[in-house]
């Protein structure tokens, strides 16, 4: 953990249990996880289903409040920050988005301006310009007036990313941003994220199932299993055959792929 | 035309009904009036007159007659509403005579008299029934004579209203029993031209029809001080002559609304309200 990371976005011993109606206690999703994210880094959260990736992401975004422990952003406790203030610093890209109403892509993107406006304030030319930039940088400007629901999966995800960018965040928290996309769109979104991370100095935290995606994009990885942090460090150090076995009970071949330029993971068999 | 028919499976020489169940309050009243009261063994849940019926078994009413209960009373005559055809069929199947009662839209008063006559013969009280009919007829004639030649005030009979508001208004239309009662009592229904038994007029229609007299019929009086204040809602419609001239009246009780043996008294009550001077 770099010194800077300890003052940027940090989870301190956070635990979270999903409350259950009419019962005391709850379903523990995360217990005692400490994780520091360095400014400008691209961190991947890896682990099997139900390991607590999404919960950790929501805690780091301030969408959920930890049952125990704290999440701090630049030294401030996230739970004590107004939602609006926190949202000016960090944006979330969910796995998929199903609006209940037929918004246009532009309307969705403009909603990213929400934390920067007062409740009754309408967005002005400045906000529209930022929305346009966000659409441009995700290559979706031509879709601006199309109903969101009429877009393909890849287009939707790019529009949602544009909406998050319109928030002008310093941190982007992504929850399996490519999971519901086919291979072509996966590559498209991945390259978009890589470019955004490089060009805009946005700190990224991404929960994902896709080890190769993580290997290709992330500087650092955090491995979670059963709500606990197994390991956290640089990708090259953490992504090993041993880690994959520990995480998924799968024997895998991990080696550096020259053409791709990053580590690749090839699952071989279920570990005995 | 007789609006009431006796359609039982009665043989030509009718057996006198000895055990009667009546699902129709108006008919119950008629049965007692013709002297068949002792033969009544069950009444509807809405029956409250004459007071004797309170001790009799209550067997449901228009929408919920308790067939099992009725059969257990071993009746030989069941009085049903005209619309209760399925109930009627059920009793016929059980070999029980039925008496089908219908409100008439036209000649409702005559229909009531015919019903009384028919009930008299069905229960073996022909003479008493004739007496009742004559008493009602002369009673009505007496009312007609009192009001004959007097100006017939344009009247509105209010049957129902949501308390404290002018909403949910039901008034007597230009056909049916209440309209005939009003005419007999020397009034002219402001809704004479609307040939329905009841009308739900808007306040604009009220203002336009501008009744000279307004009579609210209530089965029972609301409790407490509320009643006085409740009539004040009419004051909003100040241009209505009835309101302006303080001729908004309330008639409490079922005397007026039941098409039964007391209808002459009901007509008189309306007449007294419309023409107080004629009864001094």
């Amino acid at each position, binding site marked *: 953990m770099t010194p800077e990371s300890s003052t940027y976005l940090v989870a301190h011993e956070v635990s979270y249990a999903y409350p259950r109606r009419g019962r005391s206690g709850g379903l523990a999703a995360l217990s005692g996880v400490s994780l520091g994210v360095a400014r400008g880094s691209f961190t991947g959260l890896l682990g099997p289903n139900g390991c607590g990736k999404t919960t950790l992401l929501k805690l780091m*975004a301030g969408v959920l409040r930890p049952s125990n422990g704290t999440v701090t952003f630049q030294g401030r406790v996230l739970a004590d920050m107004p*939602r609006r203030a926190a949202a000016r610093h960090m944006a979330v890209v969910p796995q998929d988005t199903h609006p209940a109403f*037929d918004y246009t892509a532009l309307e969705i993107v403009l909603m990213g301006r929400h934390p920067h406006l007062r409740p009754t304030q309408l967005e002005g030319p400045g906000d529209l310009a930022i929305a346009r930039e966000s659409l441009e940088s995700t290559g979706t400007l031509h879709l601006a007036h199309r109903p969101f629901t009429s877009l393909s999966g890849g287009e939707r995800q790019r529009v949602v990313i544009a909406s998050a960018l319109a928030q002008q965040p310093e941190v982007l928290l992504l929850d399996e941003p490519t999971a519901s996309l086919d291979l072509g769109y996966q590559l498209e979104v991945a390259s978009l994220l890589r470019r955004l991370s490089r060009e805009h100095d946005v700190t990224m935290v991404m929960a994902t199932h896709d080890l190769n995606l993580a290997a290709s994009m992330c500087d650092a990885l955090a491995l979670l299993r059963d709500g606990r942090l197994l390991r956290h460090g640089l990708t090259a150090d953490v992504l090993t055959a041993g880690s994959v076995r520990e995480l998924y009970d799968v024997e895998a071949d991990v080696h550096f792929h020259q053409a791709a330029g990053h580590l690749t993971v090839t699952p071989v068999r279920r570990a005995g | 035309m007789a609006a009431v028919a006796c359609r039982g499976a009665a043989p030509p020489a009718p057996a006198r009904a000895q055990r009667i169940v009546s699902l129709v309050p108006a008919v119950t009243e008629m049965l007692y009036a013709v002297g068949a009261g002792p033969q009544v063994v069950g009444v509807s849940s809405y029956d409250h007159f004459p007071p004797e019926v309170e001790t009799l078994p209550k067997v449901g009413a228009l929408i919920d007659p308790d067939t099992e209960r009725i059969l257990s009373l071993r009746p030989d005559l069941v009085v049903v509403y005209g619309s209760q055809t399925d109930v009627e069929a059920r009793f016929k199947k059980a070999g029980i005579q039925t008496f089908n009662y219908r409100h008439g839209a036209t000649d409702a008063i005559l229909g009531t008299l015919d019903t009384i006559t028919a009930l008299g013969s069905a229960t073996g009280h022909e003479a008493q029934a004739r007496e009742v009919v004559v008493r009602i007829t002369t009673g009505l004639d007496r009312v007609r004579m009192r009001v004959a030649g007097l100006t017939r005030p344009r009247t509105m009979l209010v049957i129902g209203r949501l308390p404290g508001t002018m909403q949910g208004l039901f008034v007597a239309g230009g056909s049916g029993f209440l309209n005939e009662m009003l005419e007999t009592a020397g009034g002219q229904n402001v809704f004479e031209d609307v040939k329905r038994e009841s009308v739900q007029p808007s306040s604009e229609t009220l203002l336009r029809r501008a009744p000279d007299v307004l009579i609210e019929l209530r089965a029972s009086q609301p409790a407490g001080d509320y009643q006085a204040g409740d009539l004040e809602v009419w004051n909003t419609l100040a241009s209505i002559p009835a309101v302006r001239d303080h001729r908004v009246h309330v008639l409490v009780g079922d005397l007026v609304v039941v098409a039964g043996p007391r209808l002459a008294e009901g007509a008189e009550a309306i007449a007294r309200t419309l023409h107080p001077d004629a009864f001094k």
Partner: protein
Amino acid sequence: MMTDGTIQTAISASLTPLRPIRTRLALTVAGFGALTLLTCVVAPLIGSSSINLRRAFDSSIPFAGNVDAQILFIARLPRVLAGALVGAALASSGVVFQALLRNPLATPFTLGVSAGASLGAMLVIILGGTLAVGPWSPVPAASLAGAGLAAAIVYALANGPRRVMSTTVLLLAGVTLNAFFSALIVFVQYLANFAEVARAARWLMGDLDVGGFDPILAALPLVIVAALIFVRLPAALNLMGVDPDSASSRGVNVASTQRWAFFSASLATSAAVALAGPIGFIGIVVPHLVRLLVGVDHRIVLPASALFGATFLVACDLLARTLLAPVEIPVGVVTAIIGGPFFLWLLVREG
């Protein structure tokens, strides 16, 4: 900053035709506002009979003896204003409930508020309560109480430990409560006599003929309170309409928005139902017609629906009171005859 030279120049023009939200909002409010104003001016001039306007405004004739003035100021004007208030309240709470439940087919009555109001009204009509509360006469007072009870029950059920309401629980609780209250209404009616049942049934069909300004003035403060809350909601409702979690990550306090939305929409609905009975279909037909015209942005849909709801109900009531004069068609029947087929068309179209 973010640039992508290859496509920017080609497509930058595509944002130009879009009018900024300020302009769209101003145009929409001006357009629908003018329509509402026109309806509210014209509707009092038409009725089951014709009135002499000069006589109506002739101050030399005492009001008590001026039938034209009385028809205009007692029969028609309060009716039109009640229609405008109720229409606006039901249409705008329809919009808010649809956003809160994330379901475009929700209505102001989905969560049982109107069933509770109806039960209250039925109890007074049939059991004959006589307790007037402040400016409210007994039936509206009881219907207000019933609506409040229903809202409180649904709220208590849906307000889970996460403090964020579950829309599923809200919907299920509402549907169940509707069925439960309907059963109680049927039971109360079953115990009543014919005249009471008839009056009760009439109340359920809706009636705007309130006979004066007092009932409107009694309902107005509640609707105003609701409207003041509505003003602050649309941006948050937009985001919650996209996704509640991402709304939270965009700075929306979801739990508090839900609570305010639920409270204000329930309040407006209760006031409308207490004033005029449960007039159906306004809360779904109007928002959908408006969305077809101006898009789905709640900042525009909400005020436009309020204005168009007023227009729509005043127009429906105009039909109700003139079509079969002197006999009236209950206004709830008119809205249902227009709204029912429209609703079905909507289902087919969206399905």
